[in-house]
C-alpha cells in the first residue's frame, strides 16, 4: 500500500532534483565565465600595470609601439551609447506615454508587437543598415562624415533599443493605479498635465530601470558598432570619425590570428572584464533603484 506513495515521493524528488540542476547550470556557467575572465585578466595585469591601463590615452597592443590604455575604447563605447540613448529615450518615452495614456486599446494591442519586431531584427542587419544606408544618407548633410563613424552606428543602435525603453516604460506607466489618474482629472488637470506631472513621476522608477537596461544593452552591443563604427581606437568625442568600441576590439582580435596565450590575446580578456564591470554595475544600479524607489500604492 505504501509502495505507490513511495514511488510518487521518489518521482517528486527526481523532478525537483532535475529542476534544481537546470537552475544550477545557468549559475555554474556564469561562475565559469567570471572565473575565466578574472584569471586571464589577472595574468594580463601581471605584465601591464593597471595604472597604465586606466590612464594611458592610447590603445595599440598589436603594434610595435605598444600602449595599453583602455580609455579610447571606453570613450568609443560611451560615445555610441550616448548617441543611442539620446535618440531612444525621447522617442521611446513619447511612444510609451502615447500608448499608455492616449492610444485606443485596440490600436495599442496592434502596435506593441510591431514595435517589438524592432528588437527581433538581427543586429548584423542593423549594422549593414547603418553602414550602407544611414551613413551615405547623413553624408548628404554632413560632408565631412567618415565612412565608419560613431554617429550612424549610435543612431541605428538607438532605433534598436527603442522597444526596450518604450515597452518597459509603458508597462510602468500602465501600472500606475487609475485612482491617481482620476484624482488628477478631478482637480481639473488636462490629459497632458496628468501624463507628464502625475503619471510619469509616479512611474519614474520603472522608466529609469528601462533606460538603464537600454544603456546596458547598448554598451554590450557588438555587431552594429563592429560593422559601422570603425576599428580605430581613438580618444575623441567627435561622432564623425572612425572609433573603436570595447566589443569591436574583442571581435577584431578573436577573428584575427593572434596567438593564444600571448599578451596580445589576453588584452581581450582585460577588455572583456572592463565591459563586464560596466554592465554589472548598471544592472545592479537598476536592481537597487527598482527596490528602493518603487512607489507603493494601495
Amino acid at each position: 500500500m505504501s509502495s505507490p506513495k513511495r514511488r510518487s515521493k521518489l518521482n517528486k524528488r527526481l523532478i525537483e532534483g532535475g529542476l534544481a540542476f537546470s537552475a544550477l547550470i545557468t549559475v555554474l556557467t556564469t561562475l565559469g565565465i567570471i572565473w575565466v575572465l578574472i584569471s586571464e585578466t589577472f595574468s594580463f595585469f601581471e605584465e601591464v600595470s593597471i595604472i597604465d591601463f586606466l590612464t594611458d590615452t592610447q590603445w595599440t597592443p598589436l603594434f610595435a609601439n605598444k600602449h595599453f590604455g583602455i580609455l579610447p575604447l571606453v570613450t568609443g563605447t560611451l560615445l555610441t551609447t550616448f548617441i543611442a540613448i539620446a535618440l531612444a529615450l525621447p522617442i521611446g518615452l513619447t511612444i510609451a506615454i502615447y500608448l499608455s495614456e492616449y492610444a485606443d486599446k485596440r490600436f495599442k494591442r496592434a502596435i506593441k508587437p510591431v514595435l517589438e519586431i524592432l528588437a527581433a531584427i538581427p543586429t548584423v542587419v542593423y549594422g549593414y543598415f547603418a553602414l550602407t544606408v544611414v551613413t551615405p544618407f547623413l553624408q548628404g548633410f554632413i560632408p565631412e562624415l567618415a565612412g565608419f563613424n560613431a554617429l550612424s552606428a549610435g543612431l541605428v543602435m538607438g532605433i534598436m533599443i527603442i522597444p526596450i525603453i518604450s515597452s518597459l516604460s509603458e508597462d510602468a506607466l500602465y501600472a500606475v493605479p487609475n485612482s491617481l489618474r482620476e484624482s488628477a482629472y478631478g482637480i481639473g488637470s488636462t490629459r497632458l498635465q496628468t501624463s507628464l506631472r502625475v503619471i510619469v513621476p509616479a512611474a519614474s522608477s520603472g522608466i529609469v530601470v528601462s533606460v538603464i537596461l537600454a544603456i546596458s544593452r547598448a554598451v554590450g552591443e557588438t555587431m552594429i558598432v563592429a560593422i559601422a563604427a570603425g576599428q580605430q581606437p581613438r580618444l575623441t568625442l567627435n561622432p564623425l570619425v572612425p572609433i573603436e568600441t570595447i566589443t569591436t576590439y574583442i571581435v577584431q582580435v578573436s577573428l584575427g590570428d593572434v596567438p593564444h596565450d600571448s599578451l596580445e590575446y589576453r588584452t581581450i580578456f582585460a577588455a572583456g572584464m572592463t565591459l563586464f564591470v560596466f554592465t554589472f554595475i548598471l544592472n545592479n544600479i537598476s536592481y537597487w533603484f527598482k527596490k528602493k524607489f518603487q512607489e507603493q500604492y494601495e
Partner: protein
Amino acid sequence: MMKYQINILVLSTFLFIALSSCNKSKEGGEGALTGEVKIDGSSTVYPISEAMAEEYRVGQPEVRVTVGLSGTGGGFKKFCRSEIDINNASRSIKEEEVNSCGEAKVNYVELPVAYDGLAVVVNPENDWVKEITVAELKKIWEPEAQGKITRWNQIRPEWPNEEIHLYGAGVESGTYDYFTEAIVGKSHSSRGDYTASEDDNVLVQGISGDKFGLGFFGLAYFSENKDKLKLVPVDDQNDANGKGPITPTLETVKNNTYAPLSRPLFIYVNSTSAERKEVVDFVNFYLENVGILAEQIGFIPMEDKEYEEAKVKFTNFVSQKAQ
C-alpha cells in the same frame, strides 16, 4: 562580409564563363579524384586561390577545396601545425616560421604564382594628393608618427589642415609585413592608431566613404573598386628605377619600376599533403591556369617560363618525397 560573398560569387561566375570558353578547364586530371584540399592564409592571394578552387571543381567535383583568409602569418601558423595543405602567402616565409615548421617536422615547397602591387589610395573627392613620396609615406606610417602625425598639412604644408584618417592591412596580413618592410624599413613596425583590418573590403569601404582617408592594400582590390577610390602614384626618389612618381600598372609592377611596393605572391605546399593525389593534381592545375586567371582578377601574371620552372620545382618536390 556580405558584400564579399557577392563579390566572390560574381567573380567566380565570370571566371567560370571566361575559362570554359578557353577550354582550359578540362586539363584537370587523371580520372575522378576525391578528398579535400585545405587552403588558408593571405587575403591578398585569396581571390586567386578561390578562383582556382572554383575552376578546379568543374573538372573534379568530388574534391572539396576550401579557402580561408587568416592573413599570411595566421596561415603559416596553421600550416606549420599541419592543419592545412596549402598556405597562400603574400611574402616569403619568415625565419621564425621556418623554425616553427622545422620543429614540427613540416617540409614544404614555395611556388610563386603572380605579382601584386601595393596600392596607395585616397578618396575620389580628395583633390590635393597628386602623388606621394616614399619618405612621406614613411613619415605617416612609422611608429613614431603614432598620435603625432594626425593632420594632412603635417605631411605637406600645402595640403589641407584637416585630420587624416588612415586605413591599412591588419598586423596578421602579409600586406602589412610587406608594406612596413618597404616603407618604414622594418617589417612589422608601424603606428597603431589606424583602422586595421585583415579584410580588404573593410578598407575599401572605409576609404571610399571618407574624404580625408588614406590607405594601402593589394592592387587587385583597387582594380575591383576603381570607381570608388583614387590611386596615388608613388615616387621612391630613386631615378635608377624610373623617374618621378609612378602609378602601379601591369607594366610598372612587372618591370619593377613601381618600387618599392611591388611583390611576388606565393603558395606553400606541405610535403605530407603532397603525398595525396588530389593535392598534387590541384597544385598542377593551379600552376597551369593561374597565369590567365590572375590577370582577369587584377593581378599581374608571371612569364610563362617562370610558371614552367615552378611546375618543374613542384614535380621534383613531389618525386623526392616519393623516394
